[in-house]
């Protein structure tokens, strides 16, 4: 396949599945700059891995793996700071005054909820919220299904506990 065609195909793929990348960025980064950096890094990793993609797994599984691997094992992320709702930047506050108030609030709540989760728990929660079944979650993460069930219950419990604290 010619380079232009590969690029075209890659671009289509990214555009069709951009939601996955955006969601991973939102889950693991809380500042716009960090999200931008992570987004770029995921695209670079996807592009590097693209020639080896052989349709053996679903495209979404392949993208989840690369996006999560990049987000979790990214060294720089260690210095990233978690921002809670109470300290959301002024930019977010301004946005709240506009029409997208509700969406931003939901995102802030989502970010607040995942603040207390570990990187692995975030990945599990993401796949759960995306309505992947246990088989698909195992394919992405490499964690056994029985173990996943236990972890999901723990995550739910953790979220309930922290939600209680927030209210």
């Amino acid at each position, binding site marked *: 396949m010619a380079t232009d065609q590969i690029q075209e195909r890659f671009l289509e793929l990214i555009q069709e599945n951009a939601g996955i990348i955006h969601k991973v960025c939102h889950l693991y980064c809380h500042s716009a700059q960090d999200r931008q950096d992570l987004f770029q890094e995921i695209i670079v990793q996807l592009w590097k891995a693209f020639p080896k993609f052989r349709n053996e797994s679903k495209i979404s599984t392949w993208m989840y793996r*690369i996006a999560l691997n990049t987000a979790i094992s990214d060294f720089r992320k260690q210095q990233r700071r978690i921002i809670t709702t109470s300290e959301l930047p002024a930019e977010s506050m301004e946005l709240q005054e506009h029409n997208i108030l509700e969406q931003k609030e939901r995102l802030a709540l989502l970010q607040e909820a995942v603040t207390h989760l570990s990187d692995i728990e975030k990945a599990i929660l993401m796949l759960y919220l995306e309505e992947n079944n246990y088989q698909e979650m195992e394919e992405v993460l490499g964690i056994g299904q029985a173990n996943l069930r236990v972890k999901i219950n723990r995550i739910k419990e953790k979220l309930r506990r922290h939600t209680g604290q927030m209210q």
Partner: protein
Amino acid sequence: MELEYLKEAWKKAGEVDAMPVEEKQQLLLLPGTPSQSLVSKIRRNLFYELLIVLVCVTAIAVFYFVSFGGRLQEVSWAYILLAILFISYFYKKNKLLKAMQCPACQVKYNLSLQLATLEKYVRLYLIAGTAMAPVVMLLFYLLLHYKHIIIFASAYAGKEPSAFALLYLLITVIFTIIFYFFNRWYAGRLYGRHIQKLKNLLLEMEE
């Protein structure tokens, strides 16, 4: 907050705050940008390190080949030997770095791979860094011995060659021990935190 509400918020997460890079042309430029992952950065630094070493060794080798009427060209050969050892060290490190990541693999497998390879990398760093002291000292000893170069004349004064050799050996051992502890501390400072993080992640996945 109910999980159902979270699910709804989650669905919106992919829609809001759309990044401008989604523009077709901008998106096409992204794959060409250099990766900012630590492995990529280490590989780039390693390459620059190799270039600097090769430039310095070439300059030193040329200097000793042409200076002093060519009487000290053994020094040049010693540096060339060190450069060859460094190239093989570079090759091994680069090979390990290339094998360190498998982004398209399962997350757990990728983390295990990264941990195992990073530990090998640190071991290589420690061994090579420590071995550098006796190798350099040995090369200098050979030069001193065969070229009859006298440095630190007081160290020779009134000593039998065997006593000098023993003193030299003692100094080499001390240097090697210092190098070992320094390298261990430095490797821990560079990679220790990440190794611990990988261990914790894997432990969490397994428990």
